[in-house]
């Protein structure tokens, strides 16, 4: 299974492009998609899922051009949109059965998968409750369950961990990673730690443009040796902000602990530390700007 994206672009109006000239080749595994708000992540995902037609370029699923045969992707697609919603008067189980029918599952398969997925997303006990009584986190977990219903070969999840508490967030991202061996998972999020924990490759986009697409490990390695931590005064922190991408700050009684990316020690007593994906992400975005 292979998803290929060739020079893809979406124009909303004259001079306003949601995304432009995106080219990617994605095989089985988890592929993280990160970028600032308004970068075009959701637009890209809506095109990949055939919800929005591209203005230019093409998408191929296993060599078939999706715009010509959208059914080829739809039959193997699982999708959790960013603005996921449900029919409020249905119970969770009824809703999942509804989606299973739309996804073309027979009733036996649907029942078995609903059962297992309710267990996976930890909602078995509320299967008979109406969806309008669900909290935001429960609602999001229901969204993940419906996306996995048809055992998709292409799973596109847009901000799947929004609204989940830390424990559920870890559970969900691990579940996505566990099921990724034999499918293409595209996972968009603002939480870079989720990508680092699960993704085989990372795609960073900003202002609709592709900044980088690389294996997670190599992206992290690209900033290896360039990440420092030091304790500085607040006034020094302001100076550092002007010169370096600041990854993190922690307030202390005698100053501020700062984590930053620099090609050499920013101050004499700065300590070199292990790089993370967030460091790599910040440097990539900062360099682009």
């Amino acid at each position, binding site marked *: 299974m292979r998803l290929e994206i060739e020079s893809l672009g979406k124009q909303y109006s004259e001079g306003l492009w949601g995304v432009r000239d995106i080219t990617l080749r994605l095989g089985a595994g988890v592929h993280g998609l990160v970028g600032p708000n308004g970068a075009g992540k959701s637009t890209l995902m809506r095109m990949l899922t*055939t919800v929005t037609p591209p203005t230019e370029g093409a998408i191929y699923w296993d060599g078939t051009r999706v715009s010509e045969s959208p059914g080829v992707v739809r039959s193997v697609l699982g999708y959790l949109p960013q603005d996921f919603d449900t029919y409020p008067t249905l119970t969770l189980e009824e809703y999942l059965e509804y989606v299973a029918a*739309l996804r073309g599952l027979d009733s036996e398969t649907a029942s078995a998968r609903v059962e297992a997925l309710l267990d*996976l997303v930890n909602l078995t006990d509320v299967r008979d409750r109406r969806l309008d009584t669900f909290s935001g986190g429960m609602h999001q977990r229901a969204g993940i369950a419906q996306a996995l219903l048809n055992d998709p070969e292409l799973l596109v999840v847009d901000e799947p961990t929004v609204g989940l508490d830390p424990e559920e967030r870890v559970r969900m991202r691990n579940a996505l990673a566990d099921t990724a061996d034999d499918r293409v998972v595209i996972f968009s999020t603002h939480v870079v730690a989720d990508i680092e924990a699960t993704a085989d490759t990372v795609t960073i986009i900003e202002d609709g443009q592709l900044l980088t697409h690389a294996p997670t490990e190599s992206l992290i390695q690209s900033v290896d040796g360039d990440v420092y931590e030091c304790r500085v005064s607040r006034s020094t922190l302001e100076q550092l902000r002007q010169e370096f991408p600041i990854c993190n700050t922690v307030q202390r009684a005698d100053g501020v602990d700062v984590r930053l990316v620099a090609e050499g020690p920013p101050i004499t007593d700065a300590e070199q530390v292990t790089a993370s994906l967030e460091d790599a992400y910040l440097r990539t975005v900062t360099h682009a700007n």
Partner: protein
Amino acid sequence: MRTDVRRAYHIARADLLARVRSRKLLIFFAVVIYIGYLINSGSFGVFYTVSNGPNVNGALTSHLVGLNAGMAGSAVMLLAGFYVLRGSLERDDRYGHFPVLTSSQTSKPVYLLGKLLSNIAVGVLTAAVLAGAAVVNHSIYGVGATDPIAISWPVFVMVVPLTVFVGAVAMLFGTINLLAGTFGRIAYFFGAIFLLSAQSARPETAVPAAIPTTVKALDIVGLTLAYDLTFESIHAAVPGFESSFANFGTGGSNAQTFRYEGGPWPAWFFAQRLGTVIVGLAVTLVAALPFNWFQATGGVVGKVRQRLPLDETPSETATQTASNPQTPTDTTDSAVSTSAVGDDVTIPPVTRRGAGGFRRVLTVELRRLLRGQPRWWYLGAGLLAVVSTGIALTGGGTEEAARGLLSLVAVWPLFVWSQIGSQTARHGIRPQVLTSDYPVGQLVAEWIAGCLITIVVGAGTFAIAVATGGPTALIGVAGLVIFPPSLALAAGLWTGSPRLFEALYLGLWYVGPLNGGFVADFAGVTARGTSLGVPIVFAAVGVGLVVVAAQTRRVYTNLG
């Protein structure tokens, strides 16, 4: 106080901006302009039925055009304005605006006052659009000099106060759970019809001075006002004129003509409009009582439910504890390993894709349409189905009974039909549907499910109709089964809301199946409509709407 006024102003401003930037208000204005055109171009107008001669209508002078436009605007505002004005609270609720408002210390009365001001602004805009169109119409089709003031001011005086009342009622309905949905829209429709029909309580051949005060007080559209204003002009043109009612319609063709050149308006009408505004303000204040920020459409019922242990809904925390007992653990990301969660869940693979078939989609759509209705609806539908089937089986039906039952079958499933077409957009399900195996099939399944429910509810009635009216009654059955779900599907798909369908459909149902207007008799209630094949025309239109709606969905899903 000043802060509250500023708050109300900005609530009104934001609400009005949201409205004027939506297509719905533009469509409403287009409808208003079109009706104004019909009224003031002579295609359709106000006429008086005369008991002792041909009907009477007026020459289109500036004063009469202004009066006609005011009446047309009032009628549109009364019947359609409610459906346009009522989305205000729902919109704020849907877009999560209430928490922001609550945290800003805006009181409920101030919030509702802001909404009321926005409604008034919509009324002023409507009147301005209609008055402008009337001036243009008069310059083309009118008689005598075009007097913009004489044409415009009646429109404002008649339409704007009525907007205050209609908008307030829309707000009140929006705050009461029972009235917030389809039932409220039906209830309003009948309330408006009741107000209109109150004018028929005027005694035959009464001179204006003898018209009862109650009739004047309920002159919501201005029919009695028109009679009062034009009475002398009609008498001058038609000596011995005896009439009791002004009507909208085409009955003025080949009629005698009077010429109305204006004159002082009666004080009672200004008092009536002032009273309308006062009632509107009072209703707005009453709406503040049941209004609940955090359950905007829950209202009184919602509050009572919150205070009583009716919902034994476990909290999410309790649910999690019950379903997934956790041992104390470090919940930081790194502390929870992949193997610690989810390993015990085995998900069976999907071996056959696309094996479900359209029948399963139809089944789930049927279930979805039938879910979430009030209990009394199920009871009524069950009674209607069982009683009519019982009558049919015992051969006890009459043509009269069939007509009555057909009228009922033509309206009871409205609650179900309203769910067709719009709900995927309304509940944000579109991405799931559009990316599914059945993007167009889902739409068709909704429609078939609507038709099937109509058949089940009406089966006994249809049997009685065929038994008493012969095979030609099947024409009516076809119209009734096909047309309402089709209109619902198309209107719902194109507007993303059930309101247009409900407003159009209730109007058709009132004129056709309920009152026997054969031109709108899509259900075969009238012998004349059936003999002319009117229901078949509606059925054909219905099928056409479904085809166009399906093509619309095909285009949406990049299939067309």
